[in-house]
Every structure is written in structure tokens, then in C-alpha cells.
């Protein structure tokens, strides 16, 4: 932070000397900045620019035609539906898990925290595979489900389940360190003044964690809407029915319908940009009430 040596006790006359001694040569500095910027340009900025350029290749007219296609519309609707179910479920779970883990001391807590993080270390394809093995026609449950006419795989429930699996840790992971840091004294004060458990949660805990909560929901939602591998395995790729937006992008691309693929991709890229802007705003304004900006 204070890299011009303001914090050092050497006095004002030596500030320049300290700066020279604890910083790189100007050429090295420029070289490092140039390296970093080139890398960011090649790997982050150009891909993003490519999405928008390719989508507009044949002008905005075709871009809009693609977006008004009923299949695209169905994919958008399905993506919103899946995220609309998965995010609130994991939000409720995240609050419960954080409450249990952060506010109490109990045996097996560290193990429980590790289990919650498990989906992060599992390949998305395997996250989809486990549900195929559980509900597929060769599984234990498969024949029973079939005889009762319940369709989970290659249908919306399977897509929701796979998405819930993949986005499982996001809210909990954000809330646990935040609530651990805040401790229990606020809640104890409220309870001793006669508030009920729910009142304490709504009026004391929730206001304390709301920005952290929003941060977790933001990341959870971005992943839920963008998940590809897990959803691809369980979806069955039925056009207009079980294709989410990322799957629609894949299908259009594999049909060499590049403009259409990039047009749908534009919407997902915009989602990513909005997520990044909101995330940066939250980090800037409420860094004290967000755990992730310090841990990641």
C-alpha cells in the first residue's frame, strides 16, 4: 500500500532513497506492466471482444433475428427457470449451513466444511454423471421411476439437480467466514433483550450479512446460468425443451451457425459483465461486509 515509504521512520529527506531501494528499476516496472497487460489482452480482453464482433458480423439485423428465434427464446426461459429454482434453494441452504457452522462449536465442523466444498473439486462432467448413474434406466431407481412415469433425466428436474449440485457451495462459502468473523455478541445482545430467535435473525443477523449474501448470490447465479458440462450430460439436448443457453450455443456452433451461436453467447457475456461490475461495486463499497474479497 504505502509504497512511497510514507510509513517509514526515515524522515522526509530519505523518502526518495527508500522508494528507490524498495522498488524496481523503471524499465523493469514498465516491462512487468507491459507483460501483464499483454497477457490480459490476449487471454481476457480479446476473447470477450471476439464474442461481440462475431455476433455482429452480418450486422445488427441478423443478430436480432437470431435472438427472436423461438428456440433461443425457449433456451433463455429454461435458463432463467433453472437459475430461479437452484439459486434460492442454495441460498436457503447456505444461510442454514453458515448459521450452524459459524454460530456454534460442535464436533465434526471442519469435516462438514470440507464436504460443502466438495462440488468445487469435482469435474462438471462427473457432477452430471452421478445423476445419470442415480436416475438412468440402468440404475436402481430407474425402473421404478419409469413405471411411475417420473422423468428426471433428459428433463427439467435433472437439469435443476445438476445445477444445484454444481452451485452448492457458493453462498455457504461466502457466508461462513463472514459470520465467523462477526461472532455471536450481536445475537446474544438481541436475545437477552427478549427478541425471539427469528426476530434476532431478521433484524440483527440478516442486516449484518446482507452484502455478503448478495455477493454469494451473484456468483451462484452466474454459475447457475452459465453451467455447461454438468447440464450437458443430463439434458439430452432436446431442442426447444431441455436446452439451456450454454447448450444452445454449443448446438448452433456445431452446426456452423456461428453468427447465431455468438449472438446467444453475447447474452451470456453480458451476464458475465454485469456480474463483474456488480461484484466490483460490492467489493469497493462494502469490502468490510464481504468475506470473499479477502479470502477467495
Amino acid at each position, binding site marked *: 500500500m504505502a509504497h512511497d515509504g510514507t510509513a*517509514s521512520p526515515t524522515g522526509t529527506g530519505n523518502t526518495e532513497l527508500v522508494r528507490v531501494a524498495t522498488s524496481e528499476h523503471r524499465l523493469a516496472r514498465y516491462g512487468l506492466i507491459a507483460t501483464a497487460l499483454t497477457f490480459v489482452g490476449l487471454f481476457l480482453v480479446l476473447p470477450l471482444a471476439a464474442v461481440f464482433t462475431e455476433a455482429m458480423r452480418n450486422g445488427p439485423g441478423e443478430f436480432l433475428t437470431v435472438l427472436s428465434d423461438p428456440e433461443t427464446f425457449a433456451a433463455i426461459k429454461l435458463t432463467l427457470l433453472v437459475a430461479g429454482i437452484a439459486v434460492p434453494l442454495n441460498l436457503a441452504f447456505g444461510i442454514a449451513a453458515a448459521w450452524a457452522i459459524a454460530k456454534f462449536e460442535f464436533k465434526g465442523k471442519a469435516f462438514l466444511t470440507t464436504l460443502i466444498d466438495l462440488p468445487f*473439486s469435482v*469435474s462438471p462432467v462427473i457432477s452430471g454423471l452421478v445423476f445419470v448413474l442415480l436416475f438412468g434406466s440402468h440404475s436402481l431407481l430407474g425402473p421404478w421411476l419409469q413405471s411411475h412415469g417420473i422423468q428426471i433425466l433428459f428433463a427439467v428436474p435433472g437439469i435443476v439437480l445438476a445445477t444445484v449440485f454444481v452451485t452448492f457451495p457458493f453462498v455457504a462459502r461466502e457466508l461462513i467466514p463472514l459470520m465467523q468473523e462477526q461472532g455471536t455478541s450481536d445475537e446474544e445482545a438481541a436475545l437477552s433483550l427478549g427478541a425471539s*430467535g427469528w426476530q434476532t435473525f431478521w433484524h440483527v443477523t440478516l442486516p449484518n450479512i446482507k452484502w455478503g449474501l448478495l455477493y454469494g448470490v451473484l456468483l451462484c447465479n452466474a454459475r447457475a446460468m452459465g453451467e455447461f458440462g454438468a447440464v450437458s450430460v443430463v439434458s439430452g439436448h432436446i431442442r426447444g425443451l431441455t436446452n439451456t443457453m450454454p447448450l444452445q450455443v454449443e448446438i448452433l456452433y456445431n452446426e456452423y451457425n456461428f453468427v447465431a451461436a455468438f449472438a446467444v453467447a453475447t447474452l451470456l457475456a453480458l451476464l458475465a459483465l454485469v456480474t463483474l461490475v456488480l461484484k466490483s461495486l460490492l467489493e469497493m463499497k462494502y469490502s468490510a461486509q464481504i468475506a470473499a474479497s479477502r479470502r477467495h
Partner: protein
Amino acid sequence: MTARTASLWQIRQPSVIPGFGLALGVTLSWLTLIILIPLSGLVWRSSALGWATFWELATDQRTVNALRISFGTAFLAALINVFFGVVLAWVLVRYRFPGKRVIDAMVDLPFALPTAVAGIALTTLYAPNGWIGSLLTPLGIKIAFTPLGIVFALVFVGLPFVVRTVQPIMEEIDKEVEEAAATLGANRLQTIRRVLLPGLAPAVLTGFALAFARGVGEYGSVIFIAGNLPYVSEIAPLLIVIRLEEFNYPAATAIAAVMLVISFAMLLIINMIQAWSRRRYGYGA
């Protein structure tokens, strides 16, 4: 005496905060339903294969090659990310330049951008007729549709893991340590090599492990740029998908089991690095 005996058998320490039963109940049920039952299904299905069948499936040449490609490219990509990630984190923590805020926010793009979108965008850039690919083709360098393309996609997805693990630790470095080194006659390069980098090592290792673990399992961004030639540029997650489409569930299960075992070993190593780092340096990575 009775109170003390009771506390020995208590699962949790007493607290005035209510809702422990409800919160833990919800957590455990949801965890069991969504994570534990499906994952144990995979373990059960792979153990039902029997050791001989499992070994035969796991050592199939195409499977071995796919695993080798997945782990090899992920390793290389994580190494590249360690170098550029540390440079990027250093530049973001130490220097001032126009657009720094935007660059800092952009680092998280791979977290936010759906992998399929990243995949088709990178393919478009690095294909032989793409923006960058067309500049490299005359030089005889081919990136897309080769294993090198896989590495490029994995560099993209892994970058934020390294930067975001190293960055906070760099911010914590006490400037006085560098001043002390300079006072004792170290030149800048010596200070960086002997004083700064050793302190960053645990964070760098953790970032490397996270990027590596993510790269091994990555699917969406890779399949477009890889070319997916069996034995050459076919990654393990793609082979699982192919086996599933052939209804060859035993083979898919076996590949998944091998990947899971290696990933969990990685997770264990990450936790050990962090515990060691907390003991050694007083702060975790």
C-alpha cells in the same frame, strides 16, 4: 461432576443462540440429498465393477491417454498461470497505471463467463483463420485443434485462481522487510528472490493446485478448441461423455472414479499446504 461427564458426551458446546438443530438439520439433509447420495452412487457403481474389470477399464489405452492429456495440459497451464499470475498480481498490488481498476475486475472474467462462451471465443481467436491464429500460421504455429489449444483454454480458466490467492498475501507483505533487506545491502533482485518470493511460496503453491485441479476437470472451454482427436487431444471428461453416449456406463464410471481419486488427493494436498503455511508464516493462503 455430573455436569462435566455430560459435557464430554455433548456434540456441541452450550450456547444461548437458538436454531442449532434446525440449521444443522437442514444442512445435513440437503448435503446428503444433493451431494452425498449421488457421489456415493458413483463409488458404489465403480466398486460393483469388481477390481479386475475396473483395472481393465482404467488401463485401456484410450483412457490412459485421455487422463494423461487432461493432467498434462492442466499441469502445463497451471505452470504458465503461476508465472503470469504472479506478475499480474504484483503489478496490480504494487504499481499505478491507467485502467488498473478495470484490469483488476477483468481478472475474474473466467469465473463469470460461461465456459462454453469462453470455448467458442478462444477457438475463433486461435483457429488458423482467426485473429491471432492467422498471424501464427505463417510461422508454422498451430494452436487450435492441437493439445496446445487445450493448454490455452486451461490458462484462461485457471488464471483467477492464481491471481486471487497470491494478491491478498502480497498486500500483507510488510514494506519494512524490504527496507531491512535493502539496508543490509541486498539489491532489488536479491530482495525479491530471497525475501519476497519465499513468503509467497505457499500462496503460489495453493494457487497452482487450485488452477491445476480446475483444469483437470474442465470441459466446456476445452472441447471446442481441442480438436478432440482420440489418443491425441481428447480430454478425460470428454471421454466420459463419449462413453455415456455409447451407453457404456462401466467405462464412464471407471474414468470418473480415477479422476475423483486424484482430485481428492489434490484437495488433501491443498489443505496440507494451507495448514503448513499457517504454521510457518502465521497466515493462510
